[in-house]
Protein backbone atom coordinates (compact mmCIF):
# COMPACT_ATOMS: atom_id res chain seq x y z
CA UNK A 1 0.00 0.00 0.00
CA UNK A 2 1.41 3.38 -0.91
CA UNK A 3 2.17 6.04 1.64
CA UNK A 4 -0.06 8.67 0.10
CA UNK A 5 -3.68 8.68 1.14
CA UNK A 6 -5.71 8.58 -2.04
CA UNK A 7 -4.56 5.22 -3.49
CA UNK A 8 -5.07 3.64 -0.10
CA UNK A 9 -8.61 4.95 -0.08
CA UNK A 10 -9.10 3.60 -3.61
CA UNK A 11 -8.02 0.22 -2.44
CA UNK A 12 -10.47 0.56 0.39
CA UNK A 13 -13.37 1.52 -1.84
CA UNK A 14 -12.68 -1.44 -4.10
CA UNK A 15 -11.85 -3.82 -1.30
CA UNK A 16 -13.32 -7.26 -1.94
CA UNK A 17 -16.26 -7.71 0.33
CA UNK A 18 -15.30 -10.84 2.14
CA UNK A 19 -18.49 -11.94 3.80
CA UNK A 20 -18.13 -13.19 7.33
CA UNK A 21 -19.92 -16.36 8.21
CA UNK A 22 -22.17 -14.51 10.65
CA UNK A 23 -23.92 -11.17 10.30
CA UNK A 24 -25.32 -9.33 7.32
CA UNK A 25 -23.10 -8.52 4.32
CA UNK A 26 -23.39 -4.79 5.08
CA UNK A 27 -22.03 -5.28 8.59
CA UNK A 28 -19.22 -7.43 7.19
CA UNK A 29 -18.37 -4.70 4.67
CA UNK A 30 -18.27 -2.09 7.39
CA UNK A 31 -16.01 -4.24 9.56
CA UNK A 32 -13.73 -4.99 6.65
CA UNK A 33 -13.45 -1.33 5.73
CA UNK A 34 -12.85 -0.31 9.33
CA UNK A 35 -10.11 -2.93 9.71
CA UNK A 36 -8.38 -1.71 6.55
CA UNK A 37 -8.62 1.93 7.66
CA UNK A 38 -7.19 1.06 11.05
CA UNK A 39 -4.24 -0.83 9.56
CA UNK A 40 -3.61 1.95 7.06
CA UNK A 41 -3.49 4.62 9.77
CA UNK A 42 -1.09 2.55 11.86
CA UNK A 43 1.14 1.88 8.86
CA UNK A 44 1.24 5.54 7.86
CA UNK A 45 1.98 6.61 11.42
CA UNK A 46 4.91 4.23 11.74
CA UNK A 47 6.42 5.73 8.61
CA UNK A 48 6.50 9.10 10.39
CA UNK A 49 7.82 8.06 13.78
CA UNK A 50 8.86 11.60 14.66
CA UNK A 51 5.24 12.66 14.93
CA UNK A 52 4.46 9.78 17.26
CA UNK A 53 7.03 10.88 19.79
CA UNK A 54 5.95 14.51 19.95
CA UNK A 55 2.88 14.19 22.25
CA UNK A 56 4.85 11.87 24.53
CA UNK A 57 7.73 14.31 24.79
CA UNK A 58 5.20 17.06 25.45
CA UNK A 59 3.60 15.00 28.21
CA UNK A 60 6.92 14.44 29.99
CA UNK A 61 7.91 18.06 29.51
CA UNK A 62 4.71 19.40 31.07
CA UNK A 63 5.09 17.13 34.11
CA UNK A 64 8.69 18.32 34.39
CA UNK A 65 7.54 21.93 34.59
CA UNK A 66 5.86 21.40 37.95
CA UNK A 67 8.89 20.42 40.04
CA UNK A 68 10.67 23.40 38.53
CA UNK A 69 7.80 25.82 39.08
CA UNK A 70 6.42 24.60 42.42
CA UNK A 71 9.02 22.84 44.49
CA UNK A 72 11.37 19.87 44.18
CA UNK A 73 10.09 18.35 47.45
CA UNK A 74 8.73 14.92 46.60
CA UNK A 75 6.19 15.08 49.43
CA UNK A 76 4.55 18.16 47.92
CA UNK A 77 4.82 16.84 44.39
CA UNK A 78 3.16 13.59 45.41
CA UNK A 79 0.17 15.60 46.56
CA UNK A 80 -0.01 17.36 43.20
CA UNK A 81 0.79 14.25 41.15
CA UNK A 82 -2.76 13.17 40.15
CA UNK A 83 -3.64 16.64 38.92
CA UNK A 84 -0.33 17.17 37.15
CA UNK A 85 -0.46 13.78 35.43
CA UNK A 86 -4.00 14.26 34.19
CA UNK A 87 -3.66 17.84 33.08
CA UNK A 88 -0.50 16.87 31.19
CA UNK A 89 -2.21 13.84 29.65
CA UNK A 90 -5.22 15.95 28.67
CA UNK A 91 -3.03 18.58 27.01
CA UNK A 92 -0.90 15.97 25.26
CA UNK A 93 -3.95 14.22 23.84
CA UNK A 94 -5.29 17.61 22.74
CA UNK A 95 -2.02 18.29 20.97
CA UNK A 96 -2.15 14.92 19.24
CA UNK A 97 -5.68 15.54 17.96
CA UNK A 98 -4.29 17.81 15.31
CA UNK A 99 -2.87 14.77 13.51
CA UNK A 100 -6.12 12.82 13.65
CA UNK A 101 -7.81 14.11 10.48
CA UNK A 102 -5.52 16.82 9.14
CA UNK A 103 -3.52 14.83 6.58
CA UNK A 104 -6.53 12.82 5.47
CA UNK A 105 -8.59 15.94 4.96
CA UNK A 106 -5.73 17.56 3.08
CA UNK A 107 -5.11 14.79 0.55
CA UNK A 108 -8.77 13.90 0.02
CA UNK A 109 -8.81 10.57 1.83
CA UNK A 110 -11.70 11.64 4.05
CA UNK A 111 -13.71 12.54 0.98
CA UNK A 112 -13.02 9.11 -0.49
CA UNK A 113 -14.08 7.53 2.79
CA UNK A 114 -17.35 9.46 2.68
CA UNK A 115 -17.93 8.43 -0.93
CA UNK A 116 -16.86 4.81 -0.48
CA UNK A 117 -20.33 3.65 0.47
CA UNK A 118 -18.95 2.02 3.60
CA UNK A 119 -20.21 3.16 6.97
CA UNK A 120 -18.45 6.44 7.70
CA UNK A 121 -19.24 5.91 11.39
CA UNK A 122 -17.29 2.65 11.30
CA UNK A 123 -14.39 4.32 9.54
CA UNK A 124 -14.37 7.15 12.08
CA UNK A 125 -14.32 4.58 14.86
CA UNK A 126 -11.36 2.86 13.18
CA UNK A 127 -9.48 6.14 12.82
CA UNK A 128 -10.12 7.00 16.47
CA UNK A 129 -9.03 3.53 17.56
CA UNK A 130 -5.81 3.94 15.60
CA UNK A 131 -5.34 7.34 17.18
CA UNK A 132 -5.75 5.87 20.65
CA UNK A 133 -3.27 3.06 19.89
CA UNK A 134 -0.78 5.67 18.71
CA UNK A 135 -1.24 8.30 21.45
CA UNK A 136 -3.44 7.12 24.32
CA UNK A 137 -1.75 3.79 24.91
CA UNK A 138 1.79 5.24 24.75
CA UNK A 139 0.67 7.95 27.17
CA UNK A 140 -0.53 5.28 29.57
CA UNK A 141 2.81 3.48 29.26
CA UNK A 142 4.65 6.75 29.80
CA UNK A 143 2.60 7.70 32.87
CA UNK A 144 4.71 5.56 35.28
CA UNK A 145 7.82 7.46 34.27
CA UNK A 146 6.15 10.82 34.86
CA UNK A 147 4.55 9.48 38.05
CA UNK A 148 7.78 8.19 39.54
CA UNK A 149 9.45 11.52 38.87
CA UNK A 150 6.69 13.14 40.92
CA UNK A 151 7.28 10.82 43.87
CA UNK A 152 4.43 8.40 43.25
CA UNK A 153 5.05 5.14 45.18
CA UNK A 154 5.74 2.17 42.84
CA UNK A 155 2.77 0.05 44.02
CA UNK A 156 0.47 2.74 42.61
CA UNK A 157 1.87 2.36 39.08
CA UNK A 158 -0.40 -0.41 37.69
CA UNK A 159 -3.51 1.47 38.77
CA UNK A 160 -2.27 4.65 37.12
CA UNK A 161 -1.52 2.83 33.86
CA UNK A 162 -5.02 1.35 33.75
CA UNK A 163 -6.64 4.69 34.61
CA UNK A 164 -4.76 6.60 31.92
CA UNK A 165 -5.37 3.84 29.37
CA UNK A 166 -9.14 3.79 29.98
CA UNK A 167 -9.44 7.57 30.36
CA UNK A 168 -7.53 8.25 27.16
CA UNK A 169 -10.05 6.14 25.24
CA UNK A 170 -12.71 8.64 26.26
CA UNK A 171 -10.39 11.56 25.54
CA UNK A 172 -9.62 10.28 22.02
CA UNK A 173 -13.32 9.82 21.29
CA UNK A 174 -14.37 13.24 22.59
CA UNK A 175 -11.44 14.74 20.72
CA UNK A 176 -12.44 13.05 17.47
CA UNK A 177 -15.72 14.98 17.51
CA UNK A 178 -13.93 18.27 18.16
CA UNK A 179 -11.31 17.57 15.50
CA UNK A 180 -13.99 16.66 12.96
CA UNK A 181 -15.98 19.81 13.73
CA UNK A 182 -12.97 22.08 13.24
CA UNK A 183 -11.93 20.47 9.94
CA UNK A 184 -11.20 23.07 7.33
CA UNK A 185 -10.88 25.91 9.83
CA UNK A 186 -7.56 27.68 9.67
CA UNK A 187 -5.58 28.01 12.90
CA UNK A 188 -8.12 25.92 14.73
CA UNK A 189 -5.91 25.01 17.71
CA UNK A 190 -7.44 27.41 20.24
CA UNK A 191 -10.97 26.67 19.04
CA UNK A 192 -10.34 22.94 19.25
CA UNK A 193 -9.28 23.25 22.88
CA UNK A 194 -12.27 25.49 23.64
CA UNK A 195 -14.60 22.84 22.20
CA UNK A 196 -12.88 19.78 23.65
CA UNK A 197 -11.71 20.73 27.13
CA UNK A 198 -15.13 21.41 28.74
CA UNK A 199 -16.39 18.08 27.45
CA UNK A 200 -13.28 16.30 28.79
CA UNK A 201 -13.68 17.54 32.35
CA UNK A 202 -15.51 14.42 33.65
CA UNK A 203 -12.61 12.27 32.39
CA UNK A 204 -10.18 14.58 34.19
CA UNK A 205 -12.18 14.40 37.42
CA UNK A 206 -12.55 10.63 37.53
CA UNK A 207 -9.05 10.01 36.21
CA UNK A 208 -7.42 12.22 38.81
CA UNK A 209 -9.57 10.62 41.49
CA UNK A 210 -8.52 7.12 40.44
CA UNK A 211 -4.87 8.20 40.44
CA UNK A 212 -5.27 9.74 43.89
CA UNK A 213 -6.75 6.53 45.25
CA UNK A 214 -3.97 4.50 43.63
CA UNK A 215 -1.34 6.68 45.30
CA UNK A 216 -3.06 6.30 48.66
CA UNK A 217 -3.20 2.56 48.15
CA UNK A 218 -6.99 2.55 48.32
CA UNK A 219 -9.29 0.49 46.05
CA UNK A 220 -9.86 2.50 42.89
CA UNK A 221 -12.49 0.42 41.16
CA UNK A 222 -15.31 3.00 41.48
CA UNK A 223 -13.68 5.85 39.51
CA UNK A 224 -12.25 3.31 37.05
CA UNK A 225 -15.73 2.01 36.39
CA UNK A 226 -16.95 5.56 35.81
CA UNK A 227 -14.06 6.15 33.40
CA UNK A 228 -15.03 2.93 31.65
CA UNK A 229 -18.64 4.11 31.46
CA UNK A 230 -17.52 7.37 29.85
CA UNK A 231 -15.39 5.40 27.38
CA UNK A 232 -18.31 3.11 26.50
CA UNK A 233 -20.63 6.09 26.04
CA UNK A 234 -17.99 7.66 23.83
CA UNK A 235 -17.61 4.50 21.74
CA UNK A 236 -21.37 4.42 21.18
CA UNK A 237 -21.96 8.07 20.33
CA UNK A 238 -18.74 9.84 19.35
CA UNK A 239 -18.11 8.08 15.99
CA UNK A 240 -21.66 8.95 14.93
CA UNK A 241 -21.14 12.63 15.75
CA UNK A 242 -17.67 12.64 14.17
CA UNK A 243 -19.04 11.09 10.97
CA UNK A 244 -21.81 13.71 10.83
CA UNK A 245 -19.25 16.47 11.38
CA UNK A 246 -16.96 15.11 8.64
CA UNK A 247 -19.86 15.00 6.19
CA UNK A 248 -20.74 18.59 7.05
CA UNK A 249 -17.17 19.71 6.50
CA UNK A 250 -17.18 18.08 3.05
CA UNK A 251 -20.41 19.75 1.91
Amino acid sequence: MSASGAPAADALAGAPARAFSAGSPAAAHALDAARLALLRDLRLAFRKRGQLVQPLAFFVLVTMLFPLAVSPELARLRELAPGVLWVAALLASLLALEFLFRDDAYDGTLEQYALSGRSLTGLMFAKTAAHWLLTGLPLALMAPLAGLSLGVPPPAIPGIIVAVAVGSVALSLIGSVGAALTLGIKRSGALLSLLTLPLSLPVLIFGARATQLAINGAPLLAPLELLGALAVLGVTLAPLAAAAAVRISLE
Partner: protein
Amino acid sequence: MTWTWFHRLGSPPYIYALAARLTPWFAWPAALLILAGLWGGLVLAPPDYQQGEGFRIIYVHAPSGWMSMMVYTTMAISAAIGLVWRIKVAHAVAASCAPIGASFTFAGLVTGALWGQPMWGTYWEWDPRLTSELILLFLYLGYMGLRAAIEDTQRADRASAVLAVVGVVNVPIIHYSVTWWNSLHQAPSVMRLARPNMPPAMLTPLLLMLLGFTLFFAAVLLVRLRGEVLNRERTASWIREAVST
Protein backbone atom coordinates in the same frame (compact mmCIF):
# COMPACT_ATOMS: atom_id res chain seq x y z
CA MET B 1 -54.35 20.53 6.01
CA THR B 2 -53.99 21.06 9.72
CA TRP B 3 -50.18 21.04 9.44
CA THR B 4 -49.89 24.14 7.27
CA TRP B 5 -49.29 26.36 10.30
CA PHE B 6 -46.29 24.21 11.13
CA HIS B 7 -44.83 24.28 7.64
CA ARG B 8 -45.25 28.04 7.46
CA LEU B 9 -42.97 28.33 10.50
CA GLY B 10 -40.14 27.24 8.23
CA SER B 11 -40.62 30.18 5.89
CA PRO B 12 -38.33 33.16 6.62
CA PRO B 13 -40.75 35.95 5.50
CA TYR B 14 -43.55 34.45 7.56
CA ILE B 15 -41.38 34.00 10.65
CA TYR B 16 -39.99 37.52 10.26
CA ALA B 17 -43.48 39.03 10.32
CA LEU B 18 -44.68 36.66 13.04
CA ALA B 19 -41.72 37.51 15.28
CA ALA B 20 -42.47 41.22 14.91
CA ARG B 21 -46.11 40.67 15.82
CA LEU B 22 -45.39 38.41 18.79
CA THR B 23 -42.59 40.43 20.41
CA PRO B 24 -44.81 42.89 22.38
CA TRP B 25 -46.94 39.98 23.63
CA PHE B 26 -43.88 38.66 25.43
CA ALA B 27 -42.05 41.91 26.18
CA TRP B 28 -44.85 43.69 28.09
CA PRO B 29 -45.81 40.79 30.39
CA ALA B 30 -42.10 40.22 30.97
CA ALA B 31 -41.60 43.84 32.02
CA LEU B 32 -44.63 43.76 34.33
CA LEU B 33 -43.68 40.45 35.92
CA ILE B 34 -40.07 41.49 36.48
CA LEU B 35 -41.15 44.81 38.00
CA ALA B 36 -43.64 43.03 40.26
CA GLY B 37 -41.06 40.42 41.19
CA LEU B 38 -38.43 43.04 41.98
CA TRP B 39 -40.90 45.02 44.09
CA GLY B 40 -41.92 41.89 45.93
CA GLY B 41 -38.38 40.65 46.32
CA LEU B 42 -36.51 43.81 47.15
CA VAL B 43 -39.18 45.67 49.15
CA LEU B 44 -41.97 43.44 50.42
CA ALA B 45 -40.12 40.24 51.26
CA PRO B 46 -38.73 40.11 54.80
CA PRO B 47 -34.95 39.88 55.24
CA ASP B 48 -33.63 36.36 55.71
CA TYR B 49 -32.97 35.48 59.34
CA GLN B 50 -29.51 34.14 58.53
CA GLN B 51 -28.40 35.99 55.42
CA GLY B 52 -30.05 39.33 56.14
CA GLU B 53 -30.62 41.57 53.14
CA GLY B 54 -27.94 39.79 51.13
CA PHE B 55 -30.25 36.96 50.20
CA ARG B 56 -32.19 39.30 47.89
CA ILE B 57 -29.69 38.76 45.09
CA ILE B 58 -31.38 35.40 44.65
CA TYR B 59 -34.12 37.22 42.76
CA VAL B 60 -31.69 37.86 39.92
CA HIS B 61 -29.26 35.00 40.50
CA ALA B 62 -31.62 32.03 40.55
CA PRO B 63 -33.63 33.06 37.47
CA SER B 64 -30.37 33.71 35.57
CA GLY B 65 -29.07 30.28 36.48
CA TRP B 66 -32.36 28.70 35.51
CA MET B 67 -32.40 30.54 32.18
CA SER B 68 -28.80 29.60 31.39
CA MET B 69 -29.82 25.94 31.32
CA MET B 70 -33.18 26.50 29.67
CA VAL B 71 -31.67 28.55 26.86
CA TYR B 72 -29.06 25.86 26.22
CA THR B 73 -31.79 23.24 26.01
CA THR B 74 -33.82 25.44 23.66
CA MET B 75 -30.73 25.98 21.54
CA ALA B 76 -29.92 22.27 21.37
CA ILE B 77 -33.51 21.30 20.54
CA SER B 78 -33.83 23.82 17.74
CA ALA B 79 -30.36 22.88 16.46
CA ALA B 80 -31.41 19.22 16.40
CA ILE B 81 -34.62 20.13 14.56
CA GLY B 82 -32.58 22.09 12.03
CA LEU B 83 -30.13 19.23 11.65
CA VAL B 84 -32.74 16.52 11.17
CA TRP B 85 -35.33 18.32 9.05
CA ARG B 86 -32.96 20.84 7.50
CA ILE B 87 -35.10 23.80 8.55
CA LYS B 88 -33.15 27.03 8.16
CA VAL B 89 -35.32 28.94 10.60
CA ALA B 90 -34.56 26.39 13.33
CA HIS B 91 -30.86 27.03 12.84
CA ALA B 92 -31.53 30.76 13.02
CA VAL B 93 -33.30 30.22 16.36
CA ALA B 94 -30.33 28.23 17.69
CA ALA B 95 -27.90 30.89 16.54
CA SER B 96 -29.99 33.59 18.23
CA CYS B 97 -30.14 31.66 21.48
CA ALA B 98 -26.39 31.38 22.06
CA PRO B 99 -25.49 35.00 22.96
CA ILE B 100 -28.60 35.31 25.15
CA GLY B 101 -27.76 32.11 26.99
CA ALA B 102 -24.14 33.17 27.44
CA SER B 103 -25.33 36.49 28.90
CA PHE B 104 -27.65 34.77 31.38
CA THR B 105 -24.83 32.42 32.36
CA PHE B 106 -22.50 35.36 32.85
CA ALA B 107 -25.13 37.18 34.93
CA GLY B 108 -25.59 34.06 37.02
CA LEU B 109 -21.85 33.83 37.66
CA VAL B 110 -21.43 37.50 38.52
CA THR B 111 -24.40 37.58 40.89
CA GLY B 112 -23.18 34.33 42.43
CA ALA B 113 -19.77 35.87 43.05
CA LEU B 114 -21.31 39.03 44.51
CA TRP B 115 -23.47 36.91 46.80
CA GLY B 116 -20.47 34.79 47.76
CA GLN B 117 -18.42 37.71 49.02
CA PRO B 118 -20.61 38.57 52.06
CA MET B 119 -21.87 34.99 52.60
CA TRP B 120 -18.75 32.88 52.11
CA GLY B 121 -16.19 35.66 52.56
CA THR B 122 -14.83 35.08 49.07
CA TYR B 123 -15.90 35.98 45.58
CA TRP B 124 -15.17 32.58 44.19
CA GLU B 125 -15.78 29.26 45.82
CA TRP B 126 -15.43 25.99 43.89
CA ASP B 127 -19.02 25.26 44.63
CA PRO B 128 -20.37 22.59 42.25
CA ARG B 129 -23.15 24.81 40.96
CA LEU B 130 -20.88 27.75 40.25
CA THR B 131 -18.37 25.42 38.63
CA SER B 132 -20.88 23.79 36.31
CA GLU B 133 -22.22 27.24 35.49
CA LEU B 134 -18.69 28.28 34.52
CA ILE B 135 -18.32 25.18 32.33
CA LEU B 136 -21.66 26.00 30.73
CA LEU B 137 -20.31 29.45 29.86
CA PHE B 138 -17.39 27.77 28.08
CA LEU B 139 -19.79 25.51 26.19
CA TYR B 140 -21.62 28.61 24.97
CA LEU B 141 -18.34 30.28 24.04
CA GLY B 142 -17.24 27.18 22.13
CA TYR B 143 -20.53 27.10 20.25
CA MET B 144 -20.25 30.77 19.30
CA GLY B 145 -16.57 30.36 18.47
CA LEU B 146 -17.23 27.47 16.10
CA ARG B 147 -20.05 29.40 14.46
CA ALA B 148 -17.84 32.45 14.00
CA ALA B 149 -14.96 30.40 12.60
CA ILE B 150 -16.93 28.87 9.71
CA GLU B 151 -17.75 31.40 7.04
CA ASP B 152 -20.37 29.50 5.09
CA THR B 153 -23.65 29.95 6.98
CA GLN B 154 -25.09 26.54 6.16
CA ARG B 155 -21.94 24.72 7.20
CA ALA B 156 -21.71 26.85 10.35
CA ASP B 157 -25.34 25.98 11.13
CA ARG B 158 -24.87 22.27 10.77
CA ALA B 159 -21.48 22.00 12.46
CA SER B 160 -22.56 24.08 15.45
CA ALA B 161 -25.78 22.06 15.63
CA VAL B 162 -23.75 18.86 16.02
CA LEU B 163 -21.77 20.58 18.76
CA ALA B 164 -24.94 21.73 20.55
CA VAL B 165 -26.35 18.19 20.50
CA VAL B 166 -23.05 16.71 21.73
CA GLY B 167 -23.02 19.37 24.44
CA VAL B 168 -26.53 18.64 25.64
CA VAL B 169 -25.65 14.96 26.05
CA ASN B 170 -22.67 16.03 28.12
CA VAL B 171 -24.24 18.71 30.31
CA PRO B 172 -25.79 16.26 32.81
CA ILE B 173 -22.59 14.17 32.90
CA ILE B 174 -20.51 17.26 33.57
CA HIS B 175 -22.95 18.47 36.18
CA TYR B 176 -22.97 15.22 38.13
CA SER B 177 -19.24 14.65 37.85
CA VAL B 178 -18.61 18.15 39.19
CA THR B 179 -21.02 17.58 42.06
CA TRP B 180 -19.31 14.29 42.83
CA TRP B 181 -15.87 15.88 42.57
CA ASN B 182 -16.77 18.63 44.97
CA SER B 183 -18.35 16.37 47.54
CA LEU B 184 -14.97 14.63 47.82
CA HIS B 185 -13.15 17.82 48.61
CA GLN B 186 -15.34 19.53 51.15
CA ALA B 187 -18.51 18.99 53.04
CA PRO B 188 -21.20 21.49 52.04
CA SER B 189 -20.45 23.95 54.82
CA VAL B 190 -22.43 26.76 53.24
CA MET B 191 -26.11 27.25 53.06
CA ARG B 192 -27.79 26.19 49.88
CA LEU B 193 -29.53 28.96 48.05
CA ALA B 194 -32.64 27.03 47.17
CA ARG B 195 -34.03 25.79 50.42
CA PRO B 196 -37.29 23.98 50.00
CA ASN B 197 -39.09 25.62 52.92
CA MET B 198 -39.15 29.17 51.69
CA PRO B 199 -41.98 31.28 53.08
CA PRO B 200 -44.52 32.43 50.48
CA ALA B 201 -43.54 36.09 50.86
CA MET B 202 -40.08 35.15 49.59
CA LEU B 203 -41.11 32.45 47.15
CA THR B 204 -43.82 34.32 45.24
CA PRO B 205 -41.53 37.10 43.97
CA LEU B 206 -39.01 34.45 42.94
CA LEU B 207 -41.60 32.62 40.87
CA LEU B 208 -42.69 35.93 39.32
CA MET B 209 -39.08 36.66 38.38
CA LEU B 210 -38.66 33.17 36.91
CA LEU B 211 -41.71 33.61 34.71
CA GLY B 212 -40.68 37.18 33.85
CA PHE B 213 -37.17 36.08 32.84
CA THR B 214 -38.60 33.31 30.67
CA LEU B 215 -40.88 35.74 28.83
CA PHE B 216 -38.01 38.23 28.58
CA PHE B 217 -35.92 35.53 26.93
CA ALA B 218 -38.73 34.84 24.46
CA ALA B 219 -39.00 38.55 23.60
CA VAL B 220 -35.25 39.00 23.13
CA LEU B 221 -35.08 35.77 21.14
CA LEU B 222 -37.75 37.05 18.75
CA VAL B 223 -35.90 40.33 18.25
CA ARG B 224 -32.61 38.54 17.65
CA LEU B 225 -34.32 36.05 15.37
CA ARG B 226 -35.55 38.91 13.16
CA GLY B 227 -32.02 40.25 12.91
CA GLU B 228 -30.69 36.78 12.15
CA VAL B 229 -33.31 36.21 9.43
CA LEU B 230 -32.62 39.64 7.90
CA ASN B 231 -28.91 38.89 7.80
CA ARG B 232 -29.36 35.45 6.28
CA GLU B 233 -31.92 36.52 3.67
CA ARG B 234 -30.25 39.80 2.81
CA THR B 235 -30.20 38.92 -0.88
CA ALA B 236 -33.83 37.78 -1.02
CA SER B 237 -36.41 39.97 -2.72
CA TRP B 238 -38.99 39.87 0.09
CA ILE B 239 -36.60 41.78 2.34
CA ARG B 240 -37.10 45.02 0.44
CA GLU B 241 -40.86 44.88 0.88
CA ALA B 242 -40.59 43.84 4.51
CA VAL B 243 -38.17 46.61 5.45
CA SER B 244 -39.88 49.39 3.49
CA THR B 245 -43.22 48.88 5.27
